[in-house]
């Protein structure tokens, strides 16, 4: 596909995702409103009401029903999508596993929101990180442009015959969801062509090839089906960058599993995902101007985790800080930190690594805090002492 001209517009993340959904025109969208995702389905339901899409829109009574309806629609051979946040994802919980275990390529637009209590509707990653073991491919968006781009690529990743796994992309609630940014939209026709027509391998509605979905699966085969899901995740490591490359040829915006920013010759590195990557880029530039060899590793694809690439990119660094926007209470660290440490250790590297928890419940993460992280890395490197592994950024003592 040759590169096409995008149309520059200003949209917030929710509206950008709704635009992508309009252009993708899924067969079924089942969703329940929840802040900060509401604007996606609100906008999309307008497209439905105006006849701008052919989608069967199911305004369900709960998120459990939303994901269940997506499971049914997808098993019937349709393209199904939903959107949710925080508590809504929690309410889908058991069905997330049904979707992945049944190998249904459902796409979810996930607008990150903290988990209550205390009651909070603002951004952190407790929701999607909480679902990290649910068997879904997980992409994280840095910008509104990426929210739009990842929404479209998610369909191709999920439906790829080597993958066949539900896929979610996560955008930071309010920070991306509700803030206006400039982005480029593809022409409707280009999106339609890029995602193509979904040809289900097995469909409940295919009367010539009858199939049973969701039968009992005991001790004799359950384990084998889980092993297949592991293999599908491994293959997704190949598929995600392939689709990102194809999307790049179309848009000029190329996507991989991760992205190093001024990382190659860096001595001090942070590992970040989501919108805070943008903030960190600014600080890296600033420190580079001051002669500090700072770099950044952005993780775009958290599930599957590109362990070998991460180890190779970070193995030679003197000190590394991994930033987590969620907590694993009582653990030895938090989700992204676990992955990075295991990747390094299992590939024979043991640089000094610390873990920072930041931005919980929508706490602003500003350049000064990221600067503090790099300054602590400088100190760790200079003194040769790691100090406390678990650290908290921007919390009042």
């Amino acid at each position, binding site marked *: 596909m040759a590169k096409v001209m995008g149309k520059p517009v200003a949209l917030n993340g929710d509206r950008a995702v709704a635009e992508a959904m309009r252009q993708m025109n899924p067969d079924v969208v089942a969703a329940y409103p929840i802040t900060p995702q509401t604007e996606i389905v609100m906008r999309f339901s307008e497209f439905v009401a105006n006849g701008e899409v052919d989608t069967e829109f199911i305004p369900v009574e709960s998120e459990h029903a939303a994901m269940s309806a997506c499971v049914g629609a997808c098993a019937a051979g349709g393209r199904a999508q939903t959107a949710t946040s925080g508590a809504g994802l929690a309410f889908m919980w058991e069905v997330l596993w049904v979707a992945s*275990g*049944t190998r249904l390529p459902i796409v979810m637009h996930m607008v990150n929101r903290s988990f209550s209590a205390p009651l909070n509707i603002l951004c952190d990653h407790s929701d999607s990180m909480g679902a990290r073991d649910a068997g879904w491919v997980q992409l994280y968006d840095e910008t509104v442009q990426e929210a739009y781009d990842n929404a479209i690529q998610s369909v191709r990743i999920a439906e790829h015959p080597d993958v066949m796994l539900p896929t979610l992309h996560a955008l930071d609630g309010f920070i991306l969801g509700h803030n206006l940014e400039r982005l480029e939209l593809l022409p409707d026709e280009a999106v339609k062509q890029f995602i193509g027509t979904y040809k289900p391998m097995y469909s409940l509605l295919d009367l010539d090839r009858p199939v049973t979905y969701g039968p009992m*699966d005991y001790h004799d*085969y359950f384990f*084998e089906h889980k092993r297949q899901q592991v293999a599908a995740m491994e293959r997704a490591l190949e598929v995600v960058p392939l689709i990102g490359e194809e999307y790049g040829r179309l848009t000029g915006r190329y996507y991989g599993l991760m992205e190093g920013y001024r990382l190659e010759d860096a001595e001090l590195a942070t590992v970040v995902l989501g919108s805070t990557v943008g903030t960190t880029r600014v600080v890296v530039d600033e420190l580079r101007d001051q002669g500090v060899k700072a770099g950044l590793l952005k993780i775009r694809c958290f599930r599957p985790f590109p362990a070998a690439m991460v180890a190779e990119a970070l193995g030679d660094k003197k000190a590394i800080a991994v930033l987590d926007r969620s907590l694993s209470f009582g653990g030895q660290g938090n989700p992204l930190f676990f992955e990075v440490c295991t990747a390094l250790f299992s590939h024979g590297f043991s640089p000094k690594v610390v873990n920072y928890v930041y931005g919980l419940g929508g706490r602003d993460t500003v350049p000064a805090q990221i600067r503090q992280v790099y300054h602590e890395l400088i100190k760790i490197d200079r003194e040769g002492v790691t100090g406390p592994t678990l650290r908290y950024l921007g919390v009042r003592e």
Partner: protein
Amino acid sequence: MELKGWREIPIGGLIIDAGNSVNYETGSWRSLRPVIDMERCSHCMICWIYCPDSSILVENEKVIGIDLAHCKGCGICERECPRKAVSMVEETLVEEGV
């Protein structure tokens, strides 16, 4: 039945061959075995209608026995038989030939 490896089976637990439940031998679940007293049986076919595992074997409109590979020993045939022709016998006793 030989168990297959993860590369050889359909994904997602899907069953793609219609009618393959016959390959699943539910007879291994049985602890009580139905035994039909052919003297009492009137071949009314009530047990054949009620059996949830289609395990009542019939030939020329006559009950001829039980498909022990699939009969799970639920005892529904014993309960429903109007002639009290079915009795449930402990499998262990059957095996010992008592």
